[in-house]
C-alpha cells in the first residue's frame, strides 16, 4: 500500500533529462526511485502538455518514458480546479502568467497529495507561495500539500537522496 502521494510537476521530470546539472539530476533520480518503490505518483495532462514542448526529441522521449515507468495516476482538469487556480492567482498577486503554476497547485490540492515536488524555487518552492496556499487551503477546507524541492521533500520524509 502506498505511503505517500506525490505530484512532481514538470521541472522535476525535466531534470531527469538535464545534461547540465548532474547533481540535481542524480537527486531527482534518487527521489524518484524511492517514491516508485513505496509511494504513489500522480501527474496531470498539463504536465504532459508542458513536457511535449521539450525541444529535443530524444530528451522528450527519455523523460516521458521515465514518467510512464512511474505508473502515474493521471489528473485531468475540472472547472473546480480552474476556479481554485484563478483564486490562488489573485490571492498571491502573481499576474496572469502565473496561471499554469497555480493549476499545478490546484491539482495537487484536489488530489490530496502529500507533496508537490518541484525544482522551481523562484515561484513554487518558496515561503510566500506556501503561505498563500496554506491560508487558501485552510479557508476553503482543502488539503494542503507540502511544496518543496526533491531535497526538501526527502528531508521531510526522512529519506536520504544524496
Amino acid at each position, binding site marked *: 500500500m502506498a505511503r505517500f502521494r506525490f505530484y512532481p510537476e514538470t521541472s522535476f521530470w525535466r531534470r531527469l533529462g538535464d545534461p547540465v546539472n548532474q547533481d540535481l539530476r542524480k537527486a531527482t533520480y534518487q527521489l524518484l526511485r524511492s517514491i516508485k518503490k513505496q509511494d504513489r505518483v500522480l501527474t496531470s495532462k498539463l504536465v504532459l502538455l508542458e513536457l511535449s514542448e521539450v525541444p529535443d526529441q530524444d530528451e522528450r522521449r527519455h523523460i516521458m518514458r521515465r514518467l510512464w515507468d512511474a505508473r502515474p495516476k493521471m489528473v485531468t482538469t475540472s*472547472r473546480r480546479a480552474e476556479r481554485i487556480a484563478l483564486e490562488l492567482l489573485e490571492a498571491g498577486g502573481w499576474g496572469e502568467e502565473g496561471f499554469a503554476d497555480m493549476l499545478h497547485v490546484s491539482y495537487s490540492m484536489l488530489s490530496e497529495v502529500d507533496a508537490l515536488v518541484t525544482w522551481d*524555487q*523562484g515561484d513554487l518552492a518558496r515561503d510566500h507561495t506556501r503561505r498563500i496556499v496554506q491560508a487558501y487551503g485552510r479557508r476553503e477546507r482543502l488539503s494542503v500539500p507540502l511544496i518543496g524541492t526533491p531535497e526538501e521533500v526527502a528531508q521531510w520524509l526522512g529519506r536520504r537522496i544524496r
Partner: protein
Amino acid sequence: MARAKDPLIADVKRIRRKISRRLMDAHHRGRLHEELLAMERQGERAYREAVNGSKAGNGKHRK
C-alpha cells in the same frame, strides 16, 4: 512571477508563461475549460507518441 536563473527552470517557465497566456486569453472569452481540455488532448497525444514510439491512437497506450 520571478525569473529563474537555472536554464532548465527558465525553459520550464517560458513554456508555462506561453500556456498561461493562452489559457487566460481563453478565460477572458469564457472558454477556459474548453481550451484547457483541448490542450490536455495535445499533451496526451505527445505522451502516447513518446512512450509508444509510434503514432497516437494506435491502441498501445497502457490503461
